[in-house]
């Protein structure tokens, strides 16, 4: 669906994306990167709002810039939180349906359908100005699905959604992907992406750092010792119970004496052992955190690799 070949985009002296080559096909693909990594620029190149400075980018074999043929088959949910605030959600979506070339009657019925799909039927008649962040996200998603596009691009779509909304949203995406749609979701939260797809494009400072299966990237990360912190009233007992777990690289007590800090090579095996210690040996744990299980660490590992 999308083919990018050595695509770069400069904003004056600043580079947005740098020499990106990739392909995006059917199914859910996550575009992962920290803020400022170039995700939005890449999405804007794909949606034809921008032209590449160098390289070639095609969508369905066509140049996307200002190309209605591409937009007929593409839906876009932008990151921005701006609307015609005085419109109701239904009026806003219906207007965009009309711009998609639907007749007034077809636009009205299709609007009701997509609004129902995103769970906004009850609230679609209210003015957008009074919507919560989550409701705005749903309306943005609704307008992206209006014309039943083959490719849907979602820029940070989970921002502002509550846990139930996220679950519903992910189910909706999986349903669309199962019907053969291509879906590109950008995010800067690794955990969020892991729940949606295994297929990744990893951007860092404008460059495509890694592509492919999340499992490969995960295993690469897992080769590095993970830091794990266990907050407990009995750190010495925790150390005793966990000492026999293989692949623990180091273990030390926190200065306050209320936590145990570990470095672990295979976190999955360690978490199993920890569960057993809690359930079978009655270890009291107040908190558990993994300070380096975040995107920055992923990038650090990948750059080192």
């Amino acid at each position, binding site marked *: 669906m999308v083919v990018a070949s050595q695509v770069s985009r400069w904003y004056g002296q600043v580079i947005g994306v740098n020499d990106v080559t990739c392909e995006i096909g059917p199914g859910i693909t996550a575009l992962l990167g920290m803020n400022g990594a170039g995700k939005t620029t890449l999405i*804007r190149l794909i*949606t*034809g*709002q*921008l*032209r590449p400075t160098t390289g070639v980018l095609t969508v369905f074999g066509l140049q996307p810039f*200002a190309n*209605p*043929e591409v*937009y*007929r088959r*593409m839906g*876009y949910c*932008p990151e*921005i939180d*701006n*609307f*015609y605030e*005085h419109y109701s959600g239904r009026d806003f979506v219906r*207007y*965009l349906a*009309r*711009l*998609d*070339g639907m007749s007034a009657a077809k636009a009205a019925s299709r609007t009701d359908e997509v609004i129902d799909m995103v769970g906004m039927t009850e609230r679609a008649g209210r003015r957008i100005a009074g919507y919560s962040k989550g409701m705005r996200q749903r309306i943005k998603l609704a*307008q992206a699905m209006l*014309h039943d596009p083959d490719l849907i691009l979602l820029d940070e779509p989970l921002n502002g959604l509550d846990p139930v909304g996220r679950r519903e949203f992910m189910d909706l995406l999986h349903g669309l992907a199962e019907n053969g749609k291509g879906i590109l979701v950008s995010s800067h939260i690794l955990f969020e992406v892991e729940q949606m797809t295994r297929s990744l494009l990893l951007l860092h400072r404008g460059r495509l750092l890694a592509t492919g299966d999340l499992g490969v990237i995960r295993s690469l990360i897992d080769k590095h010792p993970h830091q794990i912190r266990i907050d407990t009233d009995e750190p010495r007992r925790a150390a005793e119970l966990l000492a026999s777990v293989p692949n623990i690289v180091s273990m030390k007590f926190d200065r306050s004496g209320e936590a145990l800090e570990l470095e672990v090579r295979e976190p999955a095996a360690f978490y199993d052992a920890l569960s057993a210690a809690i359930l079978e040996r009655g270890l009291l744990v107040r908190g558990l955190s993994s300070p380096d299980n975040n995107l920055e660490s992923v990038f650090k590992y990948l750059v080192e690799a």
Partner: protein
Amino acid sequence: MEQAIFFQALRENLRLRRFLPWIVLGVLLVFGFGHLWSTFQPDASLEQRYGTVSSILVFHILALTSAILTSTILSQEIEQKTIVYLVTRPVPRWKLLLFRYLACGLVVSFLGGFNAVCASVGVYGSLGAGASLAKDIAAIVVGAFAYGAFFMFLGLLFNRAMIMCLLFAFGWETMVPNMPGQMCYLSINSYLQAIAQHPSQGGNKGLGLLTSTAGDNTLTSSVGYMAMIGFAVALVALSAWWFSTFEYLPREDAE
């Protein structure tokens, strides 16, 4: 699709908050000024008084209305970032621009026409301006689309174009028609005055300056029509090409 673009733009411009101030301005200022003008020009005929009021207020308010409504045809969408929803739909960009322009031109024409009617009622106490009113309305419609095309183009070229448009409407359009020689032909107002054919102010230099008719304007009505229609068509075509060719991103992202 075209209908949707046109009627959405019309709906936006006819929002009470946007539309009502212009109606109030017409009633209070144009009607009131027309009614009181007999005090300042007691010896003039009703036709002369109407022509003066129309030149001073109706034509200048027309430029002002157009500057405020038309320069925002797309720049408002760009500043509010809603441009994203428009440029990623399967609608050619030139259509977006053209039908918004037509809707805006229609609203500006209506407001200009309303002001001309207010001036007529203020001066005559009725629609007695007759033929002068009809010529004025024709000039206003042509002017609305000519100013609109120019301001729309400025809106595509510059950030915060409204300031430039207001300077043009107040400064350029007031001063340039009064300049000697061929300079007055660089003003839209000169062509509109040629179409409207208001009675001359005679030797009254002060009124000539106020009505922006102190220059050496010898244009005929038909030249006025042709020049303004050509100007509007050329600028709309240029704007359509520009908007279809260049990138339009939410403002602060592009800077």
